[in-house]
């Protein structure tokens, strides 16, 4: 993915997040959708903007830690929805 393709993907994903907020959706599924879009955006910044796609081992390591963070955030979002 080039920097320009990465930027386009980030704009589309950010627009998607904001559209969900405009739509006014609430609940666990909406929260999970928003966090999934954030996860995808973070992966693009890491791999395209920060160039980790050139270092596959480091890219996998960052993806693992980011994945754990996002799963933790999703778990807390689900818990908040259940309170």
């Amino acid at each position, binding site marked *: 993915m080039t920097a320009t393709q990465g930027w386009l993907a980030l704009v589309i994903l950010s627009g998607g997040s*904001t559209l969900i907020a405009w739509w006014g959706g609430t609940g666990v599924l909406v929260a999970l959708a928003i966090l999934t879009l954030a996860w995808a955006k973070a992966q693009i910044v890491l791999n395209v903007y920060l160039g980790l796609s050139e270092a*596959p081992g480091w890219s996998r390591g960052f993806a693992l830690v980011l994945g754990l963070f996002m799963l933790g955030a999703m778990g807390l979002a689900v818990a908040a929805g259940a309170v």
Partner: protein
Amino acid sequence: MSDDTDPETGFYALPGDLMMWILIISELIVFGAGLMAFMAVRLTDPQGFTAAQGHLDATAAGINTIVLVTSGWLAALAQRAGAAGQVARVRLLLASAAALGALFLWIKMQEYAAKSAIGIDFETHPFFTFYYLLTGFHALHVVAGIVILALVGWKATPRNLEVGTAFWHMVDLVWVLLFPIIYLLR
């Protein structure tokens, strides 16, 4: 035993300067801990957090997201122009990236002013304590990033460009995680 020179996993495989990566990881840990603390405290009062979040302008923050990722894109293009030895193009792209950073800060200041005008401060609700701490700390990084982009534009070597733009992309990365968690999750 790991090999630091391994082309895939060694330290030398990391693009850019190792010290910049140590700084980036440190910053991500700090912001990550702050966001997880926010999510955990939100469990104690989900309705209160949702009501407090209703005072935020998600549209302005969404526009700010586009502004910042576009700025990151310009910085990425500047880095590539630097590798091709196009110094004038590098400076134009970095100046544009920094200008978008300044626009991000201006929109953020409008947001803070709007909160202040209706009496919202750090102590109004725990939501706003996290909101001001996390977005304020991030805004300080934007200020630092603008200074770094200016310095890199002045001394536009490929190495300086790689290190300086990496910091700017870290600021981008933090925002794409912070924006949905603070502004959009309900």
